[in-house]
Every structure is written in C-alpha cells, then in structure tokens.
C-alpha cells in the first residue's frame, strides 16, 4: 500500500489519507508514504510516535520524501472491551437496555463506548422506571405541534372587560403561572437525573419543559395586557406545589404532576377557555390545554407500562397521594381569590342569576375534574374504590 501526498501538507488533511491507508492493512503491516512538503518527515515522525506506529525514513529523491509506516496496535487496543450502548432505533432488538450502565454516560444510544469511560451520576438508570414505547411518538407529535406565542395568540384583538372581570382574569393568570412554573421545574430536574440512554423520554421531558416555558410567557402577557401588576400568591398554594417539587421519586412525581395535576388542569384550562371573556384568554388557555393533554398522555403511558411490569408500584403511587394529602391537610388549598375569580369569569357579570349560574359551573368543573381523575386512575389499573379514594385525596389546589 502506497500513499502519495504530493504537495498536500500532513497538516492540511494529509494525515487522513495515511490513517485510511493504515486501516486497510493489519497490525504489523507496512505502508509507504511519499510527499514533497518540507514538514512531512517531521510531522509524520511525530504523528507516528504519538499514535504508536513505527516509522522509518527511506532514501528518496531530491524533491520527494519517502517513509515507511508500520501499523501499531494502539488504535485497535483502545476498543478492546468496548460495548455497544444499545441500538439507536427502538424497533431494533435490544435497542433499550433494562439497566443503563452509568459508564455509557452521554454516549448516543447505539454508539460504541470505550471501556473505562467515566461513570456519570445519573440516578434514573432502569428502563422500568421511565420507559414508554409511546415516548418517540409523543415527542414527534410535540415537536410538530409547537406554536409561536407571538403569532398563535391574537394579542391585538380589541376588547374591554368590566374592571372586576379583568382583575379576575389577572388573578387566574397569576395562579396559572405559579403552577406552570412547578410543571417546568419538575421535568427539568428529572432530565438531569435521567440516563440519556432513554433518549426519547429525555426529549419528551425537555419539550414538556419548553411547553411550560411558553405557557408561562403567554399567561404573563395576558395578565399584563391591561394591567401593570399581577395578582396574589398564597402560602397554601405554594405549599401544595412544593410537595410536588420536593418529590424525589420519578414515578410518584410523574403520577402526582402529570396524571393527577395536569389532568385536573386540563379540565380547568378547558373551563377557562369555554368561559373566556375575551379572545386572548380563550387562545392562551386553548393552546396550553393542547400541550397539557400530551403531558398527561406521556405520564399515563409510561406509568401504565411500569405498572404492567411491576404491579406493586401501584401501592407506592397510592401512598404518594396519601402522604401528600396528609402533608397538606392543614393548609388552605386553593386560595379563595382564585375560586372567586373563576366564579366571576364564569358569571361574566354581577347579576344574581349570572352569579348563580357561574357558581353552578364552577361546582360542575370540580365534579368534572374528579371524574377525569377517577377515569385516568382506572386506566392505570386502580379499582373503583381506589380511584374514588385517591381522587378525593388530590390537592384542593388542582395541580
């Protein structure tokens, strides 16, 4: 095998030709190299030394330098004991490992990983904890359904609400922002703990966090559309959200946030959209509800698979709800300002008949939320009695 670099410098890409030639011969076999640049001998000698190839200069002409390079064993030795980190496509056999070794680190799924690579501190490393066969589909759907807050909402629509109704909208938006902030932080925290081998799950959680970032943006913009200041944040509301943020177990956090919390929020957002006193409020809640439905779908999908593989996890999830209920027993739950604001938005005016009607709609909303939670609990495999009990123990703060 002979490589003629001609006037191509070793540092101008010539080394690629030499590497290619060396890969075509066996360890211990020799290739010839010729070239005419002044640095070739020095560069080739230095490179061979550092790469573990043997080098010797050969007698050459005045214009052309000649050398022989014998392939060393270092390049192949580096990959002794290496491992394929699964397979890239989830339809391939053994694509996703049941237990992802921490030494696979950040390697792309399917890459060959050098033995002795550093161990990363990921804590969620078992497929059963996080995986869903639907993750790739949900991610793809989320990626294609991303909307632009600037153009998707009719920010310039003309409307004028009674002062108190506008105040009620601002209060509800303030409450939604707080809740969506919790919904952004929780998946973000788990992304950092999740082994990247479970790529599709990581992507779903990332896009979920990005969804919440947009929700926070549009709710803030709606609140400030006619006002300079936001509404109230209560200790009880934050105490409820803090139990979610503090939950260290992925399955329980996902259950409380996505299945129960965001599931309940779906009803709330659709309610606000339905009662929306202005087109901007209607648009921001409609768009947010579309995204939240996906978050709920992923939570249900991976928990269903988890429960299928390990039915015992059901009691862990149920206990998570009970523990949270006990922690929040002495807090106020949903702040009265939010409840009142929802009622006023539903009523749309101070007339007695409209207020009565608004109150009935809010009560209907809480019934709808409860039924939705029970339905999702049954879909996960909880029986009727458990579904009723767990739904009733869900936080009064909705999320």
């Amino acid at each position, binding site marked *: 095998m002979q490589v003629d670099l001609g006037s191509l410098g070793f540092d101008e890409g010539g080394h690629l030709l030499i590497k290619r030639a060396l890969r075509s011969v066996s360890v211990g076999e020799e290739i010839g190299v010729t070239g005419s640049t002044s*640095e070739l001998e*020095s*560069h080739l000698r*230095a490179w061979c*030394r550092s790469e573990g190839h043997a080098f010797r200069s050969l007698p050459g002409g005045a214009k052309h330098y000649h050398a022989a390079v014998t392939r060393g*064993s270092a390049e192949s030795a580096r990959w*002794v004991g290496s491992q394929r980190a699964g397979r890239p496509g989830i339809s391939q056999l053994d694509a996703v490992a049941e237990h992802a070794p921490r030494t696979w680190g950040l390697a792309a799924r399917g890459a060959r990983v*050098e033995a002795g690579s550093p161990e990363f501190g990921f804590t969620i490393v078992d497929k059963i904890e996080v995986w869903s066969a639907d993750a790739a589909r949900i991610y793809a759907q989320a990626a294609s359904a991303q909307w632009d807050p600037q153009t998707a909402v009719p920010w310039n629509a003309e409307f004028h609400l009674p002062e108190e109704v506008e105040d009620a909208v601002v209060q509800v938006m303030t409450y939604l922002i707080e809740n969506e902030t919790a919904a952004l932080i929780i998946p973000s925290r788990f992304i950092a703990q999740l082994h990247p081998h479970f790529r599709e799950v990581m992507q779903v959680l990332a896009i979920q966090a990005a969804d919440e970032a947009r929700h926070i943006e549009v709710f803030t913009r709606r609140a400030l559309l006619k006002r300079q200041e936001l509404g109230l944040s209560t200790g009880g509301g934050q105490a409820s959200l803090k139990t979610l943020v503090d939950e260290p177990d992925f399955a329980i956090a996902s259950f409380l946030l996505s299945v129960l919390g965001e599931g309940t929020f779906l009803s709330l957002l659709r309610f606000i959209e339905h009662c929306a006193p202005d087109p901007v409020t209607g648009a921001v809640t409609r768009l947010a509800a579309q995204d939240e439905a996906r978050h709920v779908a992923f939570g249900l999908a991976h928990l269903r698979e988890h429960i299928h593989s390990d039915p015992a996890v059901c009691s862990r999830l149920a206990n998570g709800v009970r523990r949270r209920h006990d922690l929040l027993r002495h807090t106020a739950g949903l702040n009265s300002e939010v409840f009142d604001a929802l009622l006023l938005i539903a009523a749309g005016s101070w007339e007695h008949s409209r207020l009565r009607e608004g109150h009935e709609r809010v009560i209907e909303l809480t019934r709808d939320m409860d039924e939705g939670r029970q339905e999702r609990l049954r879909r996960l495999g909880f029986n009727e009695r458990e579904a009723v009990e767990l739904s009733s123990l869900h936080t009064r703060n909705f999320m």
Partner: protein
Amino acid sequence: MGNNTTLLLGAVAYDPKVVTIWDGFQRYFARHDLAFDYILYSNYERQVESHFAGHIHIAWNSPLAWLQSERIAGDLGRRAEAICMRDTDRDLTSVIFVRSSARIRNIDDLKGKRVAVGANDSPQATLIPLSCFANLGLNPGKDFEVLSFDKLVGKHGDHIGGEREAARALLRGEADAACCVDGNHLLFTQEGTLTAGSTSVIAHTSAYDHCNFTTLDGAPPEQVHRFRELLLGMSYSDSEVRPLLDLEGLKQWQPGRTEGYAALDAALHRFGTVDDFVKSVVAHCK
C-alpha cells in the same frame, strides 16, 4: 532497605496534571502490591540533588537531568541507570523552521539573522538545535543572534510555553527562524498557532531520546525490579491503565536506553551548560 520499603519516586511538577498522573500510578501500584509514593519538585536541579542525597529511589528525569545525574554519578564513582522510558521518548527530532515567504532555504542563510529558541535549559528547543547549528558551522551568539523564550527555567523545556512563544516571535517577524521539537511543530499547525503552509522546515536534527526513569546504585533492587516490571507489563488495551498512559502521553513503556542522549551530551560539552551544577552537587556529596 527491606521488602517493606516504600518505593519513592521524584517527578517535576511542570503542570498540575502531574498530580493526577502520579496519584493514578500510586493507586495502580497499590493494587499490585507495590508500596509506592512520590515527591514533586519544582525543578529538575532540585530533584537531581535530592536523588543524590538519597531522598528518592527513582527520578523521572528529563534528558538533561539524566545527563546531569550520569556525570555526577561518574564523578562520585557511583552508577546511574536509565531503567525505563515511554515509547514516545524515543527518536524525537527538533526542527528549524522559517516563514515560507522568507528567502531562507538553509541554515547558511541564517548567518547574521535572529533565531528564536525555547528556554535556556530546553534540550529540544534550545540545546540540541543550537548544537546542530554549530555542527554546521554557525556559532550561536556569534554568527547569528539567539532569541530565548525562557518560560519556566528549571523545567528543562517540559512546559510548551517557550516553544510556542518562539513560533509566535517568528510569525511576528521578530525572528527569522525558530526551533522546536517535531511534535510541537505539528501541534502548532493543528491548533492554528502556525497556519498550514505559513512556515517551512529548513532543517531537522538527528533523532534523540527524551525522558527516562533513573536509578542510582543502592536503590532497593526488588522494588525497583517490580516497578519496572509493572510498567513494562502495562497494556494499552487495559481500560484501567489506558487513561494514565493517555495522560502521560504514551502507548507502551519501553526499556531504558542511553544511546539516544549522544546529541544532547555533545551539546552540553560544547556549551558547558551543566558544568557548574554538576560540580556543585559533586562537591556537596563528597
């Protein structure tokens, strides 16, 4: 010194990674039942003095420190031995290079010009190339001006800074030629300090060797033997040791050899670089 003696190695801390390297080797040796520890020195002269004072059993020596040790040992009637070295310590060359745009084609064209070199005590970037000039009839400081970049003297050129500064001085037009080891010329082109084609190599030295593990007579033979045996047995295919080999810049440890120090030895004879130091250590040891 009995079987329980902890083998003590001296190394020069030319870079913070030296601690990582020797901590790693210490763990490796411990796993293979060799009690081993190391002492870091800020410069090679202090390490050589310490070696002859009996503070360490093995010195990880630069080629200059090896020749200092060999001379001191000779004057004291003792014996210095190079027991092991990296594969990358063998057959280095230094290059003398100029701007491609300059009308300088060979060493003779540098008469009356300025040549940038590394630290005064750098074998590869100063002593061996300047000796090469002298061999070709051009005396440094007389037939051409020497521009030294004394980065971290005492480290014997282990720190790359002096060579990089010499290359930059050439590009700035402050020097007409520069000297460095072949691997650094390649590195400078890869990292962009020298753009491809901006310089031309007009000469290179003959091949020479670099560092080695040096022992003196009286070192605990069993531990030294085990140390050498463990090094020579390290395989690049072993994921446990590969990171250490990568950090230390080698693929395989090789037995020590001393014929590769002839060019530096000749340079030291010519310039008298280490004579005073050798005399002072010998006097102190007598």
